[in-house]
């Protein structure tokens, strides 16, 4: 049986990864991810886990090292944040094209500039098209659970893709929370040994990451897109397996009081819990408010999202990043595209909020609902607004 403990989330993520029989980790420290790097390094140095911890000189090297290790057949882990993720960027599509099931924890933090170490989603959004499976977590328990689940998804023979788990920096990584840490035996029962699709071995030489010209590039991109799309059902199945074993059930898209809701809010990551409190307050006042939380960002769960929001009159999409000079927030853009051909769809509003660690309170969420409810002439539909910006 797992045991109930209180611990800082970043440390707990390292503990959880330590239960997964990793062979290798290469993690370069960066705020607010550093505690994962430090604690994992301690676990290796203390002999608590039998793995190599490669001390690299940058995040570019960290990602390069895990690509090499995974190619050699190792279960490999890394973690980063913000500028570190940006430095890894050029290697991310290579890891996914080579179908290497690397797992990475991202302690989400604003991208410079100006330099800011606090939480938003501007680091992960530019990585959207890298061909990685991208999960978001809402609290410490989910951060631990997803860190373990990620390996099972990534290494499934029908998936073989890298997975990143997005854990809001500080707002989650530095919280001390109570949660249930699975035991080693439980994780061993849940997570089978890694069987790579190919390995670098002198006895059976193969080439990984070979050159491809225009005669093959289109087919390779198509195969990668299909691999990502096909991973969705495996992800749902693995989450179900986890639920059956540990009693904590996760879905690709979570809903809260959304069934009969007239106005639905959509969040991703740690904001979900605060928004949930706003829903309760609004319901107490008689407002038919509901919440939809997006757990899976890539592959995008189009059908699940459509089913979750189709009966609402209005939908408030919240974003913690902005596509400058573009359509607003990246989540907003995705939801609009998902609903374009639907015969029944809500009016969609977009608020960009919580940038660079700015606090978002229950009152802020209620304010968004009130503003959208007051828009009886639908003037703000399909537009975006920086919530709380000083004019």
């Amino acid at each position: 049986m797992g045991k109930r403990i209180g611990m800082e989330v970043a440390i707990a993520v390292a503990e959880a990864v330590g239960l997964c029989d990793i062979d290798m980790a290469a993690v370069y420290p960066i705020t607010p991810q550093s505690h994962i790097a430090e604690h994992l390094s301690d676990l290796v140095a203390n002999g608590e886990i039998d793995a190599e911890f490669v001390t690299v000189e940058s995040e570019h090297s960290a990602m390069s090292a895990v690509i090499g290790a995974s190619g050699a057949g190792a279960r490999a882990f890394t973690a980063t944040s913000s500028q570190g993720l940006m430095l890894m960027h050029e290697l991310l599509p290579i890891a996914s094209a080579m179908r290497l099931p690397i797992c990475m924890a991202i302690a989400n933090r604003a991208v410079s500039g100006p330099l800011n170490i606090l939480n938003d989603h501007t680091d992960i959004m530019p990585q959207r098209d890298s061909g990685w499976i991208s999960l978001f977590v809402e609290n410490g328990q989910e951060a631990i659970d997803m860190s373990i689940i990620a390996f099972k998804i990534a290494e499934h023979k029908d998936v073989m893709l890298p997975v990143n788990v997005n854990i809001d920096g500080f707002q989650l990584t530095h919280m001390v929370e109570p949660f249930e840490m699975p035991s080693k035996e439980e994780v061993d029962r849940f997570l089978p040994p890694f069987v790579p699709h190919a390995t670098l071995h002198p006895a059976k030489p193969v080439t990984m990451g070979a050159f491809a010209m225009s005669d093959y590039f289109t087919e390779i991109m198509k195969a990668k897109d299909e691999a990502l799309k096909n991973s969705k059902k495996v992800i749902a199945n693995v989450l179900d397996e986890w639920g059956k074993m540990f009693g904590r059930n996760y879905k690709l898209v979570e809903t809260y009081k959304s069934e009969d809701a007239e106005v639905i809010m959509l969040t991703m990551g740690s904001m979900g819990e605060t928004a949930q409190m706003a829903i309760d307050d609004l319901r107490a006042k008689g407002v038919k408010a509901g919440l939809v939380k997006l757990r899976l960002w890539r592959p995008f769960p189009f059908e699940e999202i459509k089913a979750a929001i189709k009966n609402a009159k209005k939908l408030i999409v919240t974003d913690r990043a902005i596509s400058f000079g573009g359509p607003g927030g990246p989540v907003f853009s995705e939801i609009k595209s998902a609903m374009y051909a639907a015969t029944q769809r809500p009016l969609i509003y977009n608020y960009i909020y919580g940038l660079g660690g700015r606090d978002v309170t229950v009152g802020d969420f209620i304010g968004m609902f009130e503003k959208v409810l007051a828009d009886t002439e639908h003037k703000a539909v399909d537009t975006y607004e920086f919530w709380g910006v000083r004019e």
Partner: protein
Amino acid sequence: MALKTWKELPIGCVVSEPGSASEYHTGSWRSQRPIWDNAKCIKCGICYVYCPEGCVQQTEDGFFQADLDYCKGCGICAHECWPRAIKMLEEE
């Protein structure tokens, strides 16, 4: 060699046959080919040394020629040949 469909690609495009790159004839990229004038050639081997493809070979009589399956027609051999024995000829 028939081109594979996307469904037929190995996972991660892993190449499982060692040395199979030699099946890819990069000579098809060529727009010019090197022609040796053996009357001017002094058999110094500069063309052999400089060829970035490693496709210039010495024949039994000591002169040189390019393996046109792999020669991309870059012209480095002609540029480096100081007795000016190599000319680049446009491919038809």
